[in-house]
C-alpha cells in the first residue's frame, strides 16, 4: 500500500540464503520438520532440500506454500514458479501449507504469509523462484558428486538427471538426501530464467487443488471435526461498539445439547453446545440486554449528511495539486459538476466466519481460514495470554476471502475467548449468515464531488476531485495516517507511478480527501478504494467527454499520452470490445480504465435497458496488464470473478444503517448476482514482462464504471449513486 509500508514483503537474497542454510544444516543433523504434527507425516513430506522444496523417493516434488489459497489460484501459480526453476516433472508436483508457528520457529524462513492486496504472487515470486533454482542446483550438485563428474556436464529434464558422456541417469528422488546435506549455492550463482523460456510458469496449467472440491471431501475450517469438540454460536451487539450488559442463561441452559452460555470479552455472548444447530437455536432464544452505546443514534441518513458536509468542508487535504484547478474551473467557459455516492458493502464470503480453538494452560491451537496466518497466530496468542511460541494456526483453505479474513482476525479472537473457558476442549465457533452480515469490516461508504472546466473547443482545462468518506486506516491502522492525511482513500488517483496511478494528464488538477468516519467498522474489500474511486473518476470522465462533444475513447486517449501503459490497456479493451463498431439495436457500449495493485485494467461493457428500466449486461471485455502472467487461465478466472463481484455491488450491493445497526442481514435483501445475470466475459491479457502486478483485485474497479457508462449511453442519463436497484433508469 502506498506510503504505508508495514510488513516487509520481500526477503533479501542474503537473508533467504542464510535461512536456507540454517534449514539445510538442521536437516543434516536429522532434524525433521513437524509439518503436520506427527513423525509419520513428517516422513511423508519427503526430504527437505530447502524450505520451499521437499522431494520424495518416488520423485514427487512437494512445494511449500506460505500464502493462503482462497480460490484465487495463488497456490497453483506459486507452485508453477518454483517448479519452473526446479526443472521438475509438473505431473509430480504437490503442495503443502506452511503454518505460522513453523515460520516463526525457523526465523520466518518463508517470509510474509499475508495474502491480501493482490500480493500473493508478485510479493513472493522472486524468492520462491530462487528457492526452486537453489534446490535444482543442489540436486544436480549431489548427482555430480556421486558420479564424480563436473556438474556442468549434467542435464536435467522433468527431474531426471543425465550425464551425457557416460549415459548415467538418476532422479531427484534418489539424490535428494545427498542434496539436502549440501551447502546452498552462492546467491550470485543463481540466475533466474527469462520468462520467454518458461515451460511451466506462464502456461494455463490446471489448478492443483480442484479434485476434492468436486466430491465434498475438501475440509474447510467450518467442516473440521476434532475428538470431543463442542460447538459455539455467537452474537455481538447489533449496534457496532455496543456492550453486553446481561443475559438470562437459565432460559436456555436446559435446551437440548446446551453446555453453557459464556461471555465473549465485553461485546458478545456465545452459547456452547454439542452441535452448532443446538447452540444457535439456544442463542436465538437467549434474552440479552445490550448497552448499544452512541452508535444507536446513527442511520444511513445521518451518515450521508456527514459525508455531504465533507464535500465542501475546509479540512480536506490535497494529495495532488497541479496548477490551480479551482480558479481555472471557476473561469472556464464550460463547466461540468457531479456528486457521486457509494454505500457500505459486506464481503459475504460463502463460508461464514468460523474458527476452532483449543486452549490449555500453556498452548493455544486454532484451525481457521485466514488471509493472515501470522495475524491469526498473534490474535490467538494474545487472546490466550500466551507467548507466540506457544501457539499454532492450522491453516485450512478459505471458502472465500476478499479481504474479510485479513489481519483483523476478530473471529479467531472470539473462538479463543470462548475455548479458554473450556480448557483442553476444542470448540468450533461458527457465525450465522446474519452475524456475518451484521459484523463485517465493510467497504467504506463515501461520496465524491467532481468538477471540471472546459474551453469552447471541449479541451479539459482543469479538474477537481473531492472525496468525502470513511477511512479504512482510521479504523484498522491509524499509524498509517501521516499528519491527518490518509492517502489510501485516494487509491487509483495517486500521482506516483507503479501501484495505483491516476492515468490522465490534466493541466490543472486537485485531488482531495476529507475524512468522515462513522461508528461502522470498515476494511479492505476486493479492490478496496479503487472500486469507489474508479466509479467516480471514470463515470465523471464520461460526463466530461460527452460535454466536450468527443468520443469517450478519443477524449481519454488525448489525456493519456504520458501514461503509455494505461493507454495500451485501454486500447486493448477498445479493440477487442469493438469500440466504434455497430451494435444490435438497443445495445449500448461503455468504456473505462483505472489502475490498482500494480496492474493496469480497462473494460468495455455492452448493455441494454428495457422500456421498463430493466438492465441487462450482455458482454464485457476486460484487458489487464499484470506485468507477468503466471497462469493465463487462472488470470481469466479472476477477471471473470471480478466481474461478478463488481456487478453484485453495482446492481444490488448496499448495507443500510438503522438505529446504528445493519439492516440487510441475509441474501434475500442483500442480493448477489446469479448465473442468469452473468454477461459473457472476454479476458485480454497483455503482459509487458517489465514489472510484476497483482491479479485478484485490479480489474474489479473498471467493471462498474464501464457498465454505468454503457447505461449512460443507453438512457442519456448518468448514474451517480449506487446501487442501481435504487435508481430508476427510465
Amino acid at each position: 500500500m502506498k506510503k504505508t509500508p508495514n510488513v516487509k514483503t520481500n526477503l533479501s537474497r542474503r537473508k533467504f540464503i542464510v535461512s536456507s542454510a540454517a534449514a539445510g544444516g538442521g536437516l543434516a543433523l536429522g532434524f525433521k520438520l513437524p509439518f503436520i504434527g506427527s513423525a509419520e507425516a513428517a516422513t511423508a513430506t519427503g526430504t527437505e532440500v530447502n524450505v520451499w522444496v521437499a522431494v520424495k523417493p518416488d520423485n514427487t516434488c512437494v512445494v511449500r506454500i506460505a500464502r493462503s489459497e482462497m480460490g484465487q489460484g495463488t497456490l497453483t501459480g506459486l507452485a508453477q514458479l518454483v517448479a519452473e526453476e526446479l526443472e521438475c516433472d509438473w505431473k509430480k508436483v504437490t503442495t503443502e501449507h506452511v503454518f505460522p508457528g513453523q515460520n516463526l520457529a525457523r526465523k520466518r524462513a518463508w517470509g510474509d504469509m499475508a495474502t491480501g492486496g493482490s500480493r500473493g504472487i508478485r510479493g513472493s515470486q522472486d524468492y520462491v523462484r530462487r528457492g526452486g533454482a537453489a534446490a535444482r542446483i543442489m540436486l544436480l550438485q549431489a548427482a555430480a558428486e556421486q558420479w564424480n563428474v563436473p556438474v556442468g556436464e549434467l542435464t536435467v529434464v522433468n527431474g531426471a538427471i543425465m550425464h551425457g558422456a557416460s549415459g548415467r541417469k538418476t532422479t531427484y528422488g534418489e539424490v535428494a538426501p545427498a542434496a539436502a546435506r549440501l551447502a546452498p549455492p552462492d546467491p550470485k550463482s543463481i540466475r533466474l530464467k527469462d520468462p520467454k523460456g518458461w515451460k511451466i510458469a506462464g502456461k494455463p496449467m490446471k489448478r492443483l487443488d480442484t479434485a476434492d472440491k468436486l466430491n465434498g471431501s475438501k475440509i474447510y475450517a467450518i467442516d473440521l471435526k476434532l475428538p470431543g469438540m463442542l460447538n459455539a454460536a455467537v452474537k455481538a451487539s447489533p449496534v457496532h461498539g455496543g456492550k453486553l450488559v446481561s443475559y438470562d442463561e437459565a432460559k436456555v441452559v436446559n435446551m437440548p445439547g446446551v453446555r453453557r452460555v459464556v461471555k465473549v470479552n465485553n461485546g458478545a455472548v456465545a452459547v456452547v453446545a454439542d452441535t452448532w444447530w443446538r447452540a444457535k437455536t439456544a442463542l436465538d432464544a437467549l434474552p440479552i440486554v445490550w448497552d448499544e452505546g452512541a452508535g444507536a443514534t446513527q442511520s444511513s441518513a445521518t451518515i450521508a449528511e456527514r459525508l455531504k458536509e465533507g464535500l465542501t468542508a475546509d479540512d480536506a487535504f490535497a494529495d495532488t495539486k497541479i496548477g490551480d484547478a479551482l480558479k481555472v474551473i471557476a473561469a472556464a467557459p464550460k463547466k461540468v459538476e457531479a456528486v457521486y455516492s457509494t454505500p457500505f458493502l459486506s464481503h459475504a464470503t460463502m463460508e461464514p466466519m468460523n474458527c476452532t480453538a483449543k486452549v490449555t494452560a500453556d498452548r493455544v491451537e486454532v484451525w481457521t481460514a485466514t488471509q493472515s496466518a501470522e495475524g491469526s497466530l498473534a490474535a490467538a496468542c494474545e487472546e490466550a495470554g500466551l507467548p507466540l511460541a506457544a501457539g499454532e494456526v492450522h491453516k485450512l483453505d478459505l471458502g472465500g476471502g476478499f479481504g474479510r479474513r485479513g489481519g483483523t482476525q476478530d473471529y479467531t479472537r472470539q473462538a479463543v475467548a470462548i475455548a479458554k473457558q473450556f480448557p483442553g476442549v476444542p470448540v468450533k465457533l461458527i457465525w450465522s449468515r446474519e452475524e456475518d452480515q451484521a459484523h463485517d469490516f465493510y467497504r467504506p461508504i463515501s461520496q465524491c464531488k467532481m468538477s471540471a472546466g472546459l474551453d469552447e473547443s471541449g479541451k479539459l482545462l482543469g479538474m477537481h476531485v473531492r472525496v468525502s468518506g470513511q477511512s479504512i486506516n482510521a479504523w484498522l491502522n491509524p499509524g498509517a495516517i501521516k499528519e491527518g492525511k490518509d492517502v489510501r482513500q485516494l487509491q487509483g488517483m495517486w500521482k506516483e507511478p507503479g501501484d495505483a496511478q491516476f492515468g490522465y494528464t490534466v493541466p490543472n488538477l486537485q485531488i482531495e480527501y476529507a475524512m468522515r468516519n462513522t461508528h461502522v467498522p470498515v476494511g479492505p474489500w476486493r479492490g478496496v478504494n479503487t472500486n469507489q474511486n474508479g466509479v467516480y473518476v471514470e463515470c465523471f470522465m464520461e460526463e466530461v467527454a460527452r460535454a466536450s462533444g468527443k468520443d469517450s475513447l478519443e477524449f481519454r486517449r488525448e489525456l493519456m499520452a504520458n501514461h503509455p501503459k494505461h493507454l495500451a490497456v485501454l486500447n486493448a479493451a477498445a479493440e477487442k470490445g469493438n469500440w466504434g463498431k455497430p451494435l444490435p439495436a438497443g445495445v449500448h457500449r461503455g468504456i473505462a480504465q483505472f489502475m490498482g495493485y500494480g496492474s493496469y485494467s480497462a473494460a468495455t461493457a455492452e448493455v441494454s435497458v428495457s422500456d421498463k428500466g430493466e438492465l441487462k449486461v450482455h458482454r464485457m471485455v476486460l484487458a489487464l496488464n499484470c506485468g507477468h502472467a503466471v497462469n493465463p487461465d487462472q488470470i481469466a478466472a479472476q477477471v471473470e470473478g471480478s466481474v461478478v463481484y463488481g456487478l453484485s455491488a453495482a446492481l444490488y450491493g448496499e448495507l443500510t444503517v438503522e438505529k446504528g445497526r445493519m439492516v440487510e442481514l441475509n441474501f434475500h435483501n442483500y442480493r448477489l448476482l446469479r448465473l442468469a445475470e452473468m454477461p459473457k466475459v472476454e479476458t485480454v491479457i497483455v503482459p509487458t514482462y517489465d514489472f510484476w502486478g497483482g491479479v485478484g483485485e485490479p480489474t474489479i474497479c473498471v467493471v462498474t464504471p464501464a457498465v454505468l457508462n454503457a447505461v449512460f449511453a443507453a438512457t442519456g442519463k448518468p448514474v451517480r449513486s449506487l446501487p442501481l436497484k435504487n435508481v430508476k433508469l427510465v
Partner: protein
Amino acid sequence: MAKLNINGKVRDVQAEADTPLLWVIREQVGLTGTKYGCGVAQCGACSVHINGEVRRSCSIPMSAIKPTDRIVTIEGLSATSSNPVQKAWAALDVPQCGYCQSGQIMAAAALLRKNPKPTDADIDAAMTNICRCGTYQRIRAGVHMAAANLQSEAKKA
C-alpha cells in the same frame, strides 16, 4: 431417533424435529460436503437430491423427511467423481474457492437428469445457486460440456 436414507445407507439419527436436514447431514451423519451458506434457501450451498429432486436442505426440517425418502449428497453423487458434471467441472477448472461447488454440482446434475440437453435459458432458470468467487461463466460452460459428454456416451451405448 429417526431413520434417514442417505447415499443408499439407512442411518439412525438423533435430532429435534425442527432441526434442518442440512445440520443433521453435517453434524449427525458427519458428511460435510453439503455446505451452510445462508440458512434461508437463498444460496443453494446446501443442495442435495431428495428422490431425485434438487432441494435446499437448510430449509427442510427433519419432521418433513420420511424414512423412505432417498437423500443423495455430493459424497453420494458418484463413488469416483465420474459424474459427467464432475468431469466437466474438472476439465474446465470451474471451482475457485470451491465452497459453493457441492451445491452447484448437485443442481447441475439434477438439471441434466431431467433435461439432458439444456439451453442457456434452461441453465439460467435451473442454476440459481450463488457463487461469490464468480464462476458462473465456467458453470454454464460446464453444464453444456457435461450435456455433450452425456450425448456422446449415449450414442456409444
